[in-house]
């Protein structure tokens, strides 16, 4: 009776020993193959990684999550994320803050590609969740204004953090910078930060011209009129000829020149034949 465990132990040991050489050969063979095929893999991987921001995340946890969802779900990511967003809407209607927040994270973890999820998610965090928290604390009438402001600022910072995360997946995206600027302006009331973000939005490829105009408007609001004028003077030649927005910019230049009492000799003169409509390099 007592010899049975000893026998089974020795059987296992013999079994492992008999397989060990085969295991070594298999591991050695795969390692050799991996080393040889690294020559093919390395250049391909460099190109692919440059194309897909999800594959070059700094955080190992986030990168692992993306690796698994990308690999196992593949194209299903889109439909899984869409259904998660629908579920999120149900929770949003119920004003369930923790569940909405969880699904907001989940939906972008499953599929970080659509901007829709990031931008609308940031809006929900900054605006809706602020209202929910104030309502939960007793409503706008009973919660002191200072506390309302504090809640709004907390939510705004969370939303900006989400947008910063979005920028790791969508670098050089104007819509994300516009959204950030809107939150900084309307929630944090940080005009200087919003002005800087609108400028960053305009600097991105395909950045909207209105972001450049808003940058100037906010500089004006900050009392930095000379800076605003210099900005608009630099902007105007880059706008399309005959466009309504181009005329608005010229009008604002004239207003600022009047405010700053710029002598007629030094006032801005549009290029002959109107602005060429070219945008600066990198745009």
């Amino acid at each position: 009776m007592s010899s049975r465990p000893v026998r089974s132990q020795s059987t296992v040991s013999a079994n492992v020993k008999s397989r060990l050489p085969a295991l070594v050969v298999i591991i050695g063979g795969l390692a050799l193959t991996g080393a040889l095929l690294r020559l093919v893999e390395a250049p391909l991987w460099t190109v692919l990684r440059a194309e897909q921001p999800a594959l070059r995340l700094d955080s190992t946890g986030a990168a692992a999550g993306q690796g698994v969802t990308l690999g196992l779900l593949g194209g299903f990511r889109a439909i899984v994320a869409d259904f998660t967003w629908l579920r999120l809407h149900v929770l949003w209607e119920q004003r369930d803050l923790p569940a909405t927040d969880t699904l907001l994270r989940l939906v972008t973890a499953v599929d970080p590609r659509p901007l829709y999820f990031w931008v609308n998610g940031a809006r929900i965090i900054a605006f809706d969740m602020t209202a929910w928290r104030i309502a939960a604390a007793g409503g706008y009438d009973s919660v002191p204004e200072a506390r309302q402001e504090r809640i709004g600022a907390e939510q705004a910072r969370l939303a900006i953090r989400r947008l910063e995360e979005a920028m790791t997946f969508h670098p050089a995206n104007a819509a994300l910078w516009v959204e950030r600027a809107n939150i900084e302006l309307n929630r944090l009331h940080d005009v200087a930060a919003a002005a800087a973000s609108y400028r960053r939005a305009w600097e991105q490829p395909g950045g909207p011209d209105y972001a450049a105009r808003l940058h100037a408007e906010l500089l004006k609001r900050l009392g930095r009129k000379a800076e605003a004028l210099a900005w608009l003077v630099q902007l105007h030649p880059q706008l399309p000829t005959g466009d309504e927005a181009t005329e608005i910019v010229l009008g604002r230049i004239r207003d600022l020149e009047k405010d700053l009492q710029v002598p007629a000799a030094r006032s801005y003169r549009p290029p002959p034949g109107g602005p060429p409509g070219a945008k600066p390099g990198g745009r």
Partner: protein
Amino acid sequence: MTRVPFSFTRARLIGQNTLLEASRQKLFSFLLLLALSLVAGAQGFRDFNFGAPELKFLADLGYGAMAFFGAALTVAATAQLFFSEIENRTALTLLAKPVWRAEFILGKYLGIAAVAAVFCVLLTGLLAAVLWAREGSLLTEFPEAFPHGRTLHFADLVAAGYVQWLKLAVLAAFTLLVASFSQTQLYTVVTGFFVLVICHLQYLAQDASARGDSVFARAVAGAIGLLFPNFQLFNLAENVGAGVAVPWDRVAHVSVYALGYVVAAGALAVYSFRKREI
């Protein structure tokens, strides 16, 4: 008794038989029908699409079905078709005849690769038809959105389907390698899925081996990075439907990469199977 030379004909016959056997399996029919109906009914999911262009959404769904159900089919079918021969003792009968073990493994592999190919061809064909029909109706509804006519290149669809098949072929070779020394079908299936996950995260192991903190962690990560292929390289379907042409040189490089791993894993499976007692 004289030893017969290695015969590709025998390997092909075993492969044909494997394919036939697979086609009779309920699992194959179930996964194939599920994937086909999902792709065929993809337009029904359009209302649930947020943010992505419609054709991209349809293409994503199609290749998602191919990758997801294809991987499940490949791992399960490889394990099942290999172990059915062992458990039903047909392998003993077959190998008692002048048939090389290498021919048996090659035949099994060819059969499974053919199963994966049939799956990918059917799904790619159906996806192409769905996309063609939808693009046609979009062209009629919104001609201004298509100033240069059709935007989908069907050669790109085929290339993406082919690369998906290459990935399944590598996965099949690795699952067969596991099956060659494994004692149970369940162990093979579970390990096959682990291999699938590890291969998708292989690039993280490479990163960790380059930037890891401890020497031990770097060594372990380096070993994983060396032993497993990088399945993220096979992710070509991202380009389809997004207006980005499929880079054909990448398709060629991925083919070489996949072939290298298939040959290596196949040869090691033969070596391991020759040492095995049936």
